[in-house]
């Protein structure tokens, strides 16, 4: 069994199993906890309904904080969108997803995929540079750097494989798949889980404040 066979086969499968089981375990472990009832009389009878708007409205900072947060917000959006395009847009990824689910769609031209990959990596570097240069603001933990590493590695190895840089292609491709496997396997345990938590966290605060007639 070559490294590539190993990566493509048992490793990626195990990683996906860990990811799905881990996500379910962590979400359930938190969401099964009881919620304390707020019995106070709401100022706004539609408070709960309005509170859910925070899930969407918090997607962009309010004008009050825009100047202070613009750089990071824009970089984060560039990173997330560019990564999304690469993950679901290029032909080898679509083939991988088709192998798992059967679903398929037309791929982007290679040039677009590579450009998005470079943009994603560049924005990720911009974000980590900021984190490194402002330690007082970010209060980073090893988990922050490790999360950055497991996100950056698939991008780096994917771009190298596409460009045929360094070792032979099969080895690069295997490394890329292993990097993706590391990403999947780590996903449930660190802060990558914000992909799920943001919905609950924003909604909770939105509802608590909307009850008092405050839109956050």
């Amino acid at each position, binding site marked *: 069994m070559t490294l590539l066979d190993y990566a493509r086969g048992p490793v990626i499968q195990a990683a996906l199993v860990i990811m799905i089981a881990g996500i379910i*375990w*962590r979400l*359930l*472990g*938190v*969401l*099964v*906890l*009881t*919620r*304390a*009832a*707020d*019995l*106070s*009389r*709401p*100022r706004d009878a539609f408070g709960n309904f309005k509170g859910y708007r*925070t899930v969407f409205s*918090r997607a962009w*900072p*309010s004008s*009050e*904080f825009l100047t*202070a*947060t613009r750089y*990071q*917000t824009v970089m*984060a959006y560039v990173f997330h969108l560019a990564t999304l395009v690469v993950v679901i847009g290029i032909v080898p990824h679509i083939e991988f997803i088709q192998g798992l689910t059967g679903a398929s769609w037309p791929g982007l031209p290679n040039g677009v995929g590579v450009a998005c990959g470079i943009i994603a990596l560049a924005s990720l570097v911009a974000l980590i540079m900021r*984190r490194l240069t*402002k*330690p*007082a*603001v*970010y*209060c*980073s*933990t090893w988990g*922050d750097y490790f999360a950055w590493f497991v996100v950056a590695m698939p991008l780096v190895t994917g771009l190298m494989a596409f460009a045929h840089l360094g070792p032979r292609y099969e080895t690069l491709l295997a490394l890329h798949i292993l990097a993706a496997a590391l990403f999947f396997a780590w996903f449930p*345990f660190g*802060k990558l*889980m*914000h992909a799920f*938590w*943001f919905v*609950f*966290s*924003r*909604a*909770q*605060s*939105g509802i*608590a*404040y909307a009850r*008092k*007639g*405050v*839109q*956050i």
Partner: protein
Amino acid sequence: MNTATLVPEFPTFAEIVQGLGAQIKQLRALAPRPTLPESVRVQRAIATLIAETNADEAVWLESCIRCGQCTTACHYFQATGNTKYAPLRKMNLYRRIYQRELGPFRWWYRLITPPVTLQDLEELQELVFDSCTECGRCTMVCPMGIDIASLVHHQRSALVAAELVPPELAAVQTEQKHQGTAFGASPEALHRMVETIRTQTGIEIPLDKPKAEVMVLTSAVDVVGNARGLWATARVMNHLGVDWTICSDAFESANFGLLSGDMGLWKKQVDLIVAAAKRIGAKTLVIAECGHAYPALRWNPTLKGEELPFEMMYISEYLGRQAEAGRLRLRPLQGRVTYHDPCKTGRRGGAFAEPRAVLKALQADFVEMPANKEFNWCCGGGAGIFLLERATPLRDAAFRIKMQQVDQTGAETVLLSCASCRLNFEAGRQKNQWNKRIESLVELVAEHLIDEGTAAAEGAA
């Protein structure tokens, strides 16, 4: 001439702040000493925190991605640049306890994180008392919308259990728990103050009426210091001609249970007030200018609001509604004014429109601060922090942000409706020789009322 229309010669608020300063210094000596063994204190803190952790808290603790944006919103971080005061750090110990005791991967975190020690809790004290007013401004910027203020509050409860409340707060918390008073504001002190006001100004305060439509609360600051506050409240209520009373067994707005994190004391104080309001058949309970009393009563999550026979409102809300209904006859306010939303009634209470309605009725030249309403900068003195001597440098630094905000409006007067904010503003004004006037909403309204006596006196003049 009707003496009831005179503005009384009570001590000014500036004098009261100076007097209170001396009293606060004595509090440190009165603070109770820890009595329990170290391990018990740690265990009690952990147990309290876990008991108070529901899905909301767990989600918030799980959600932080350390993006650092909360630091742009926090007055203590912005004023000092010290990473220690970054709001996201104020969740760290709570998260560690949650991950070790309750989180879905607790078996793992017990292996890789150290157990919590008394020293950890001692270090937490500065983060959840001295450097957090629970103002909630960080929630406004957090991309995850984490309500750090409420997480800080749970940690205050844990520190109550660990006998680690800062001495000044612990002293008043203990006084309220055992004597039922704050700063010695007893029923007798209230009776004396009511009598003083009556003899000096002719204003009658109906104490202990067996039945009344409106039950009004006052606060320790007014009962033992600022007579003008109680005078003003009475003058406005009498002007409105409503059937009102103050109950001498339940008059205190200040709740050192909520401030310190002592949930048992919080409930005890609230139960007293609810029982009195029910007994006298009140339809409305008016909370004095005491910011945290608003969440303590109006937004108390354990009080079934729909089933209470009375409505609770902050005095700024009450005045605003009266103004909107045209029941306050007011002389126009001279000079430019700005309004400071106390965190507990504003961002964390939602009473934005009513105080502004009062300003409209005063025909005020009113200018909003650059950051206002839900984005208002905290003055740095709330949540009991004004009492903490140790926190003075931090509080003074944070207050400079507030001064800049006010200065940008060009206002001569800062109007506010919270005794904590007012004490902090007044102390800040004196220290910085700031050329602003600090005024309370209820006192300003009382001083601008036009009633029969005033009209007659003005006509005669």
